[in-house]
């Protein structure tokens, strides 16, 4: 199906403001929703948060008061969109439950993007990152069972496996080794741009979330685990944001942001089974079409370029939340022992990596290891959900 957002008519901006009644959405049921509905909500919240933060940064670098006013007007609507999207999450859910859903997003969004990414260097960046999100899911799942006596599978419902990925303690690399090489804006496939922006936004939201909710826990191991994984989210944001060509002008970046929002709302509208949530995706798509038109006008006026020069002629295939189990198992089998050196990937623990490891661990086991020890003490086993059989990596199988 072809859908060209540049040729669609959206809702005029002066008709987009919603009143309190319209903002007061009914949250999803945490015990009976489709897990991927919750994933779409979390992912889209990350996209809206990035839209808002980007617009603020743009405004702070923009001397033209007329443009500042235009940005403010669109941004206010984006704030309302964020409120509606994120408020679909239920107050009944615990922070840890939402955390596990965040990691399910990271695994199945990054997994899907890795499969769909046409550029081999960018693909490698997603393959590398997804094995770390996968391990975070496993660590948080064990914490969840300790604190709430619930199995993470009640949240992910067999769509995503829960078992070790690349061990979290090995994610702590020297910061300079987290900076990748950017794509070239002149030759990049337009789809690659959308992927980079999507994954960067999702990881940034995860980083912000852990930064703020981690200290809400009272249990020492929970506080410590959020600190540890929160620092890895900093690494991931560095990793993914460095993939984006910094030579893109502010105007061009604005257009890409709006275009990506159209792409994702369209994708989610096409794949959403919950009719109330689907109606929101559809409404927001129709709002974004107008935001995109405004961004394109700004680009023409201030950049002297046609947006068509940098955009795809039509939307790519819908981005889909679906199981990526076989793909992940293949990566677990082949890429567990990778780390980064400069902008590339290596299999040996090099000197800078070793030094960082010594410094951050200080001769002790990190929280991600201690959570497993404490879980084993309580239950005499680990928590895993391996729906497709034994772990593909022999060393990662559970020892009884």
């Amino acid at each position: 199906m072809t859908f060209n957002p540049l040729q669609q008519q959206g809702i005029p901006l002066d008709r987009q403001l919603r009143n309190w009644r319209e903002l007061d959405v009914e949250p999803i049921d945490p015990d009976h929703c489709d897990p991927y509905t919750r994933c779409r909500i979390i992912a889209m919240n990350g996209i809206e948060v990035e839209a808002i933060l980007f617009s603020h940064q743009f405004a702070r670098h923009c001397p033209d008061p007329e443009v500042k006013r235009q940005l403010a007007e669109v941004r206010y609507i984006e704030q309302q969109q964020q409120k509606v999207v994120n408020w679909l999450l239920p107050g009944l859910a615990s922070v840890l439950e939402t955390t596990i859903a965040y990691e399910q997003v990271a695994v199945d969004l990054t997994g899907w993007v890795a499969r769909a990414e046409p550029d081999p260097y960018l693909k490698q960046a997603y393959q590398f990152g997804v094995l770390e999100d996968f391990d975070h899911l496993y660590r948080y799942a064990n914490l969840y069972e300790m604190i709430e006596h619930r199995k993470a599978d009640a949240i992910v419902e067999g769509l995503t496996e829960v078992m070790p990925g690349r061990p979290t303690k090995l994610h702590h690399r020297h910061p300079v080794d987290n900076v990748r090489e950017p794509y070239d804006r002149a030759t990049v496939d337009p789809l690659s741009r959308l992927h980079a922006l999507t994954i960067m936004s999702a990881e940034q939201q995860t980083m912000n979330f852990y930064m703020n909710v981690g200290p809400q826990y009272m249990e020492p191991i929970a506080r410590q685990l959020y600190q540890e994984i929160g620092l890895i989210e900093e690494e991931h944001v560095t990793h993914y944001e460095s993939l984006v060509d910094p030579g893109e002008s502010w105007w061009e970046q604005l257009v890409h942001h709006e275009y990506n929002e159209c792409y994702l709302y369209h994708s989610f509208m096409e794949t959403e089974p919950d009719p109330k949530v689907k109606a929101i995706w559809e409404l927001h798509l129709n709002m974004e079409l107008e935001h995109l038109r405004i961004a394109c006008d700004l680009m023409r006026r201030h950049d002297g370029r046609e947006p068509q020069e940098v955009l795809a002629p039509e939307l790519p295939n819908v981005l889909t939340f679906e199981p990526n189990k076989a793909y992940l198992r293949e990566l677990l089998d082949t890429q567990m022992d990778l780390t980064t050196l400069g902008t590339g990937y290596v299999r040996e623990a090099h000197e800078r990596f070793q030094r960082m490891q010594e410094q951050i661990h200080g001769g002790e086991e990190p929280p991600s290891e201690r959570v497993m020890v404490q879980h084993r003490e309580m239950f005499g086993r680990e928590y895993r959900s391996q729906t497709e059989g034994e772990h593909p990596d022999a060393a990662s199988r559970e020892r009884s």
Partner: protein
Amino acid sequence: MAGIAASDADVVALLMRQHGDIRNLFDEVEQSTGDERRDAFRRLVRLLAVHETAEEEVIHPFTRKSVAGGEDVVKDRLAEEKAAKETLARLDDADTDDPKFLSELAALRAEVMAHARAEERYEFIHIRRSADPARLASLASGIKAAEAMAPTRPHPGTESAKKNLALGPVAALVDRTRDAVRKTMGKDG
């Protein structure tokens, strides 16, 4: 503060895990049919009765006495409990095969979950702040005495539903739970 591993001696950790057990039992009731559902539902009813009785005997008195504004915090919790208990009373002798059962159960689940989260956020948080480890442990012993009255796992054998029923009506269970808690708390508290 002790880690979670040692937290059988921490009343808040214990109650939060019971909230998880209750939620697990709701899942079990929803996902089963026939005799299995009847049995799971009996266990759920009993666990709810025991859990709430223990909170009334152990937690709310502590909050009333030791937490600033505790009187009002408990009043709000009791109002939630009352709503849940009324729904529970309607369901207590319900036919679990009745087509209306699942929608009634969903209403009960929503009330119980809202109550549990409110406790965690507005009551337990003050208990951890106001009680020292020894106190948390002595409160926990009261909860554990109650917990022993309500098995979360099914009795083995095919007669499980009948056996559970044979344990008697919920009102009697509440009385026995109250006695057990008071005996323990009198000893430890």
